[in-house]
C-alpha cells in the first residue's frame, strides 16, 4: 500500500514536471485555428508541421542554437575551472577573510545587473569583444561565477577533511589526495555546478541583448523573442515550435550527465 502511494505520488510529480513540455509539443503541432479554440485539446486535431517550417524559415534557429550551445558550454566549463580551486580554498582554509568573501559573493547577487550593463558594454567594445561570442562568454562567466563558487564551496565542505588526512597518513601527497580522494567525491557537485552554469548561460537574455548586435551572432533567446509583437501579441505556433527545439540541448545535456549526480557516495566513509 505504502509503495503504491509512493508510486502514485511519483507519477503525479512526473506529470507535473512533464506538463509544460507536453503542452509545448501540443501547441507546436496545432494550426492557428486550433490554437485560437476556446476549448483547447491535448492532442492536436489536425497536426501540422507548419509552425516548425515557419520558425525555421523565418529565423536562423539552427545557427543561433549552435551559438548558444558554444557559449553555454564554454562558459559553464570556464566557470567550474575557475570556481573549483577558489571554492576549495574558501572551504578548507576557514578564516575571517574567507567568511567575508563568501558573504560578499552572496551579497553581490542582489545588485541589479542593469546598473552595470552600459559600462560593461563599453568595456567589451574597447576590448573588441562587443558583438562577439567570446565577449558574451566572458560576461556569462563573470555573472555565474559567484553563485557557482558558493555552490562548490558547500560541496567541498561536505567532503570530510578526515578523508584527506587519512590519505595523507597513507602517504599521499597534496595533489594525489586531491585527485584520487577529493575529486571523485566532488563529481556530483561539479556536475550540478556545470548544469547550473550551462542552463544559466543557455537561458540568458539581457546581456546577450546588449552585447550582441548583429543577427549573425545572435543566440537562441534573442531569436525566440522575435516571435513576439507589440501589445503582448505573440505568434504562438512558431514560438512554441522554436521553444521546443530550444529545450532539447538542455535535456540532452542533463540526460548525458545526470548519472554523475548520484549522491550518497560518502555515506559511511568516516564511520569508526
Amino acid at each position, binding site marked *: 500500500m505504502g509503495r503504491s502511494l509512493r508510486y502514485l505520488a511519483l507519477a503525479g510529480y512526473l506529470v507535473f514536471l512533464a506538463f509544460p513540455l507536453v503542452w509545448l509539443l501540443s501547441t507546436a503541432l496545432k494550426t*492557428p*485555428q486550433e*490554437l*485560437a*479554440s*476556446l*476549448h483547447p485539446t491535448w492532442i492536436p486535431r489536425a497536426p501540422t508541421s507548419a509552425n516548425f517550417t*515557419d520558425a525555421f524559415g*523565418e529565423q536562423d534557429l539552427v545557427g543561433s542554437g549552435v551559438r548558444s550551445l558554444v557559449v553555454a558550454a564554454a562558459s559553464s566549463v570556464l566557470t567550474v575551472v575557475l570556481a573549483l580551486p577558489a571554492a576549495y580554498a574558501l572551504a578548507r582554509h576557514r578564516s575571517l577573510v574567507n567568511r567575508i568573501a563568501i558573504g560578499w559573493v552572496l*551579497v*553581490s*547577487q542582489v*545588485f541589479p545587473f*542593469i*546598473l*552595470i*550593463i*552600459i*559600462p*560593461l*558594454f*563599453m*568595456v567589451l*567594445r*574597447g*576590448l573588441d569583444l*562587443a558583438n562577439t561570442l567570446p565577449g558574451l562568454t566572458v560576461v556569462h562567466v*563573470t555573472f555565474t561565477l559567484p553563485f557557482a563558487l558558493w555552490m562548490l564551496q558547500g560541496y567541498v565542505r561536505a567532503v570530510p577533511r578526515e578523508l584527506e588526512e587519512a590519505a595523507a597518513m597513507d602517504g599521499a601527497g597534496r595533489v594525489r589526495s586531491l585527485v584520487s580522494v577529493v575529486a571523485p567525491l566532488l563529481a556530483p557537485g561539479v556536475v550540478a555546478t556545470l548544469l547550473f552554469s550551462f542552463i544559466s548561460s543557455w537561458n540568458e537574455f*539581457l546581456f546577450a*541583448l*546588449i552585447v550582441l*548586435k*548583429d*543577427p549573425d551572432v545572435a543566440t537562441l533567446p534573442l531569436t525566440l*523573442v*522575435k*516571435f*513576439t*509583437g*507589440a*501589445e*503582448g*501579441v505573440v*505568434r504562438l505556433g512558431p514560438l512554441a515550435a522554436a521553444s521546443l527545439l530550444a529545450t532539447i540541448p538542455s535535456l540532452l545535456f542533463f540526460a548525458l550527465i545526470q548519472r554523475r549526480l548520484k549522491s550518497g557516495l560518502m555515506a559511511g566513509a568516516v564511520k569508526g
Partner: protein
Amino acid sequence: MRMRTALAAGLLVLVAGCASEPPAAAPDEPVTIKFQSLAWQKESIAANKELVAEWNKANPKIQVEYIQGSWDNVNDQLVTSFEAGDPPDVIHDDSPALSGFASRGYLMDIKDKIPAELKSDIPQPAWDTVTFGDGKGGQGVYGVPFLQESQVTIANKKLLEAAGVRMPTSDDPWTWDEFAEISKKLTKGDTYGVAWPMKSPVNKVLNLALNFGGTFFQTDAGGKTTVKVGAEEREVLQRIHDQLYKDRSADPSALGMGSADPLPGFYAGKYAMLPAGVYLRQQVVEQAPDGFEWITLPPLKGVGSEQGAVSQTLSVAADSKYPEQSLKFVSFFLNGSNQVKLAKGDWLLPTSVKAAGDPAMTAEENGWNVATASAKNLVVAPFLKVNGFDEWKSKVATPTLQQYFANKITIDEVAKKLVDEGNKVLERYNQ
C-alpha cells in the same frame, strides 16, 4: 558587484583613452548602414526584407544591413546602445518612445532635411506625432511616421444580421448610444454583445475619449501640464462601465485580457463584437475557423469621431556616421508604394496619402476600406506631448482604471485619483 562596477569604470577610462573610432568612409567609398526593424509578422518581415534587398541592389554604395529587433525590449536595448554610442543608424520605434530619446539628444532632428516629396505625402497630424522638444527649448522632428492604428470594431457578421441591426458605414458610423443599444440586443444566452479587453486600459480609453473631446491633460499659459477629468473625459469611462454592470452587455471576465485574448471567445460566438486596433484583423484572418463570417465596423462616434493616434516611426540616430545616407534610405523605404507593402504586412494604416489611395488599401476584403477610411479621424494623441505620461500611466492611471472597470471604485473616485495622484507625478516633470 560593486567591485566589478568600479573595475568596469576604471577600464572604461582606460578604454576611452585607447579606443579609436573607426574612420568614416571617404565620400565615394561604399558604406553600410544598420537598419533595426521591429517587424514581427511573417508578411511584414518579408516586406521589410524585400525592400532592403531592392535598395541594396539599386544602391551598391549604400548597403543596408537588416537587423530584426523586438517590440518587447526595444527601448531597453536602444537606451543602452545610445548610451554606449553604438546605436543602429536607422531605428524603427513608435512615437511615444521618441519624446524621451529626442530630449536626451539620441536622435537626429530631421526637420530641415526631409525630402519635399516625402514631407508633402504625409499629413501634418502624422508629423505632429513625431514633433517634440529638443531638450533645449526648441522643437524638432525626430522621425518619419509611417504606420498608424485606429480603433475599430470587429464583429460577428451572422450575429449582427440575425439581430437585424443597421450596418454602419464610414460615412454613417454608429454612435456610442447605438453601440450600447445594439450590444444589449446582441446579448442573449451565452453571448455577450461586446468584450472589452482592458489589461492595458489607458491608451485605449484616452484615445477613445477624444470622441467626446476628452483630453485628460491641460496645459496652462505658463506651460504647466495638469490632469483633468471633467464631463468629456468621463463619457467613455462611464459608457464602458455601464455596459459591464448596468446593461450587462459586456463580459466582465474579459476585462483582464490583452487585446488578442478574447479572440477564441469571439470565434466561438461568446462575444458578438470586439473593439480593437485595426491590426487585430490579421489575427482574425489567420485564426478564424472555416465559415466564420466577420466584418470590420468603422470607429464609433461621440460628439465626433476623432481618435488619438501614435505612429510607428523610422528615425536616424544622432550618432550615426552616415546620417545623409540613412535619411536617403528612409525616404526610399517610406515612399507611397512601399508604405502600401508595409501597411499590408502589419495590417496597419499608412500615413502616406499616396499609399492610402492604393486599391489594396481600399479593398473591401478584410475590412481594408473601413480601416483606411478611419485614418481621417486620427489626431495626435494628447498624451504624446506630456512629460511624465509614462509614469502617470503605470503608477496612477492603469491601476485606477482597472479598479474602476472591476467596479471597486466610483467614477468620482477615479477622477479624484487621476487628478490628485497624477498631478503629483506631473509636478516633478513640470519643474
